[in-house]
């Protein structure tokens, strides 16, 4: 990793990343506001509890009552808007490498005393920072909402902090996938397209596994199977298995990206 390059990569990505992080923060804040205003526990609670389990699972609420503040707010971590912002944050940073290959800026970068491995390590560091930022933004938005809007009872901060860690690990895994696609691609659009396609497929697997037995086994290959903020909030603890799998998938993605990038022609 190179400090100068890392500073530069942060500088280049700052606007998009900050906007995505602020969006996530604002979304979690709004979710608290919405709960406070709509009070689904009073008005919709019984109705929500009647939802079939697969649908509640799809909403990320199979393990915690959707009518409680914790259950409803956990949904804010798995809501499509939140997932889209997380994907944006991860892929925006991960596919920079492909943009540099496409524009041939990589020729200038790799004319410096900088190995391919060090260049890639700087991108991995950006992924770690993006994951930390996403977790911090989601947690901050949630806590800010809890501080501002009145709730029947305050959700446990520790539980949501742990859910935010789970969210950060998901961003890291998505970043690793994006970086692998970037290391393989000649163009940024190809890398983004491939990553988005794979993420949508993983989401499909995760949702399909809730409905059909046949998808249970392939769903183990989906990052999203190990992203269970509802479960984390219900238990008040992270599942070590989920943490290790997400970390392992990230590491595997980064190592494969390194292997590919070290060997390929940069054309």
């Amino acid at each position, binding site marked *: 990793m*190179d400090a*100068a*390059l890392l*500073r*530069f990569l942060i*500088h*280049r990505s700052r606007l998009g990343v900050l906007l995505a992080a602020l969006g996530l923060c604002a979304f979690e804040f709004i979710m608290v506001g919405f709960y406070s205003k709509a009070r689904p526990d009073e008005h919709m609670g019984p109705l929500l509890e009647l939802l079939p389990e697969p649908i509640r699972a799809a909403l990320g609420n199979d393990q915690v009552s959707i009518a409680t503040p914790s259950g409803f707010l956990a949904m804010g971590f798995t809501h499509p808007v939140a997932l889209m912002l997380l994907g944006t944050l991860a892929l925006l940073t991960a596919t920079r490498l492909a943009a540099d290959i496409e*524009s*041939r*800026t*990589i*020729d*200038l*970068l*790799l*004319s*410096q*005393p*900088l*190995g391919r491995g060090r260049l890639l390590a700087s991108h991995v560091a950006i992924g770690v920072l993006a994951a930390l930022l996403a977790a911090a933004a989601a947690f901050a938005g949630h806590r800010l909402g809890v501080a501002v809007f009145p709730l029947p009872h305050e959700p446990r901060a520790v539980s949501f902090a742990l859910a935010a860690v789970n969210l950060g690990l998901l961003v890291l895994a998505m970043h690793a996938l994006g970086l692998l696609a970037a290391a393989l691609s000649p163009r940024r659009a190809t890398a983004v397209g491939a990553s988005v396609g794979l993420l949508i497929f993983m989401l499909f697997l995760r949702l399909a596994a809730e409905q059909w037995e046949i998808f249970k086994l392939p769903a183990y290959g989906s990052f999203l199977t190990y992203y269970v903020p509802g479960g984390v909030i219900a238990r008040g603890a992270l599942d070590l298995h989920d943490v290790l799998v997400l970390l392992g998938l990230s590491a595997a993605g980064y190592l494969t990206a390194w292997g590919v990038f070290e*060997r390929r*022609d*940069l*054309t």
Partner: protein
Amino acid sequence: MPDPIIATHGLTKRYGRDAVGIDRLDLEVRPGEIFGFLGPNGAGKSTALRLLLDLIRPTGGRAEIFGLDTHRESVRIRERIGNLPGEVEMWRDCPGVEVLDLFAALRRGQAPLREETLRRLELSPQALTRPLRTWSRGMKQKLAIAVALQHAPPLLLLDEPTTALDPLVREALFTLLRELRGRGHTIFFSSHNLAEVEQLCDRVAILREGRLVLVEVVAALRARRVRRIDVVFRAEPAALPPLPGAVVLSRQGARVVLRVEGPIADLLPPLHALGIEDITITAPPLEEVFLEYYRGA
């Protein structure tokens, strides 16, 4: 003879079964010279440069720079080179000064030639503060040259450096490159423009369809070039004496047009003996020499 700065041994790059980027390139670039690397677009010049920089990997042969293997020891090599890629689009939202600062920072802040290069290429400090998306192509090219030169590398690899430069800046660049040669820097100058190479380089290699056609001292190349001699004698000569190295292209009364290959010193005395009224010697541009080789003549 000192060790070459760049040496390639059968360097080959193929794309798939049929497409040839570079075919068995054997080349040596000596310390302190400006080495011209000539060829039309698509001849393989950029491929060769990208192989030297380890951006692409050879399918055969090997290359060394400073005696170091370009693949295994590429980072050590890069500590001592400056590179100007042929086609590069730098980050559009960055001001020029940030680009220069980044590349200097990657070399632990070394930029002893920055101010001089910017001054000579007429890149003003005001312009450097503006994002690159507002820059013209020529200004971006100047910035890329400054990136390559600012750390005063012992070896400069320049791929079509005069692209988009106006004639005055081009001349300023050539002056700067000559001065750098005078200070012991080695310059590998890739171009498709023979006039530039003739003006600047000590030696030249001509590349055609990925193959090295010729490596020659520029002065020798010039000496080998074909000339056209248009002579008007005081009176129509009855017969022409033997004219070494010359071919008569046309003869009309007292006017004779000759084509001469090589030195003309031996040719002038017999012509003079016939009584010259007027003589015009046209030295075709090096371009013709290049085209001859390019056409496989």
